[in-house]
């Protein structure tokens, strides 16, 4: 868990927006909230596979662009009446540089 890989700088992600990191295990969506918090979650809605990185970011949540499921970016849990969860990944921001745990990148595709 000590190995971190730099994936980019915080200003490369729009405020209240997201970008993707492509890994062998699939796309990971990296979000930047209005408060400059950075979160990383699986870029795939458990409902119909919608790309969550394309959703509208509000507070600490994102709304899926396909059918409006809302996910908490910190826990990955669906909000409201919907049931489901996306995987979350640890990220670390140091001096504006975003790091992600190296094991995420090395993970074999599931």
């Amino acid at each position, binding site marked *: 868990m000590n190995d971190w890989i730099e*994936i980019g700088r915080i200003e490369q992600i729009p405020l209240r927006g997201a970008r993707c*990191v492509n*890994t062998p295990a*699939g796309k990971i969506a990296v979000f930047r909230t209005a408060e400059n918090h950075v979160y990383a979650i699986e870029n795939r809605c*458990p409902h119909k596979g919608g790309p969550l990185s*394309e959703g*509208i970011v509000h507070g600490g949540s994102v709304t899926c662009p396909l059918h409006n499921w*809302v996910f908490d970016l910190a826990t990955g849990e*669906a909000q409201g009446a*919907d049931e489901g969860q996306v995987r979350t990944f640890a990220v670390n921001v140091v001096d504006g540089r975003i790091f992600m745990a190296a094991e995420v990148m090395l993970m074999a595709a599931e």
Partner: protein
Amino acid sequence: MGGAMKEKLVIIGNGMAPGRALEKLFETDPDRYEVVIFNAEPRVNYDRIMLSPVLSGEKSFDDIVIHGDAWYIKHGITLYKGCKVESIDRVNKTVTSVNGITESYDKLVIATGSVPFIIPVPGANLAGVVTYRDLDDVNTMMLAAKSRGRAVVIGGGLLGLEAAAGLNEQGMDVTVVHVMPTLMERQLDPAAGYLLGESMKARGIKVMTSANTRQILGDKRVTGVEFADGSVIPADLVVMAVGIRPNVALAKSAELAANRGIVVDAQMRTSDPSIYALGECVEVNGATFGLVAPLYDMANVLAAQLCGDDKATFTPVATATRLKVTGVNLYSAGDFAEGEDREEIVLRDASAGVYKRLILKDDRIIGTVLYGDTGDGPWFYDMLKRNVDTREMRDTLIFGQNYQGGAPLDPTAAVAALPDEAEICGCNGVCKSKITGTITAKGLTSLDDVRAHTKASASCGSCTGLVEKLLLLTLGDSYNPSAVQPMCKCTDLGHDEVRRLIVAKELRSIPQLMQELEWKTSCGCAKCRPALNYYMVASWPGEYEDDQQSRFINERVHANIQKDGTYSVVPRMWGGMTTSGELRAIADVVDKFRIPAVKVTGGQRIDMLGVKKEDLPAVWADLNAAGMVSGAAYAKGLRTVKTCVGSDWCRFGTQDSTGLGIKLEKFMWGAWTPAKVKMAVSGCPRNCAEATCKDVGVICVDSGYDIVFAGAAGLDIKGTEALCHADSEDEAIEIIAALTQLYREQGRYLERMYKWLKRVGMESIQAAIVTDREKRRFYYDRFVFSQQFAQVDPWEERVNGKDAHEFAALAEFGVPQAAE
């Protein structure tokens, strides 16, 4: 997980009854069992009683899913989809599926449902003969309906009529064939059956009663149906909807006691103590069941059993029936045969198409049939279930609950008078006290809240009025559905109030607005942000900087997201006209980027589907190079102006409709509007451009241009309304631009033009656009002003590097896998 210690519960069947039983089980004792489900159908649990609205096109399959995949995952259920169980080994306690999966069980539940009854006539196995039981049947019927051919529905009961109405909606020529003299004779008396038949005929469905099918004609495919009297009607599709019988084959092969259905006691136990059964496949005291309410009762009993509570027992009660055909109000419950010991009260109002009948025995209601006006159904049904003595109200009983106690009660008081256990939602078996209790306990304030927490009114919706009255009763004045509906959960203000304050308080950015108007969330939500962004764009043209992060993905990347995460790209073709050069450029783009699908749209454009997001800027660059700009097929803005060829080519054309369409589109493209705006110009009243179902349409006539607006041809179908006549092209353009500007300033975000008209009224619109020339000019000028900032091709901007971050990954590691 610790699954090894759990008891293992295997369920054969994944319909509504076991689904409800599991919900109850997880409420009471979520960790008791490891659950495995075998579903013969290749899908999750859905609301089978809502198949009729799917067939008629009013709902989609997604709308009727009860438990999505996530539910099964959350509860750790193993669901084998498309996996039919072939045998049960009761000695070793295992079940095995046709495709060879074996699972052991501690407890087994059989919920195999029913199978449609096929009348054994020659030709019953021809292609084109279907039953009406599951989604596959519905899909088959919808496919057949595309031919717009002739359908014969055999069976004039609940299912048959719903199938007939659905196929009729889908455009087929439908005949219902029923063996009895009147329709739905098991639920309706002959008088109501007759009214129902007339109502079916009024919608264009032919009805043949007392008709005995002798054989189904055809060589390989069905071609017709022949009757006992020798007559023949042609058919491309035959739907057998004559009834169902319990599916007992598996239980019988396992040598469980079974007659017509699998024999269970009032606790859902079969003859084997480890095996339970419920649903349409069982019989209890010799009776079988096909409607949802008793099946849900069984589910509650089974869940209690599985939790070790054997006090709960299943007691069949009379079940009420409704026909789910839009526009037909029909309600029946109980026993309505005539008899010497029975009295009846009948009310008929022929002009209003109302028929009500109550059947009484010893002064108690034992049955009711209501047609046309079914509002009192639940009240009668409740008295029937509670065995209420009606002597006191005998004289006015038939007039319904409103007339009891002298003066007519208002409808809300009538709902207040219902007892706590009165059933409000028949689909989901929700009673009054459950709804009022949940409203209070969870602090619910809206219909959607009640649907989310109790499921009442969440299925067929026919009890929505009752639920709203319960909200009113429970919340008092604080519930007022006609009061201002807040934009979203982030504010108490409605759309109109917010728009007014944006101008009045000169709020020029979303953060400023949220601060000044005391938004309850830090940065809004996916509902209010796009709305606020539009209101800012419309209120402060040239000043406000569009907030891309408050736009839906389609408007952010100027293409339409598809279900697989790829995009579709539609270039503008002014007025639907194109050239060989444009077509060649499109063909080259399709080849170069290996675009998998190309389609002509309803708005006379060409759609390239399946473009990868990262390819979008390069695709646009090539299209730009050929002179094409974004067609805005994704925008809440001007989409397309459809035209016919007009006086240039057509022998009937009265004006240059193509030319006017192109002028309108070149003048108005780029304008953002509350919802999409589609236009059309037809060159003569034959209206080949279909202008009379558009948001704005022009019909050219010899004397000029008739301007119509507020049509719809989507979720709702609505013809346009006449706005006015223009003598010249310039006048027509001015009127249309002014109208659009008025809509831009008054429309609520996502409110289409026809809904805006309905809300504000024709008078106010005509006053601003038609009668007062100065006002028209005012709105026209504002539109023109706003357009100078709007007409920037978003594709070209992005080809030149704008928002480049949208189209590239932040980082790449290893070999990226193809998207699933």
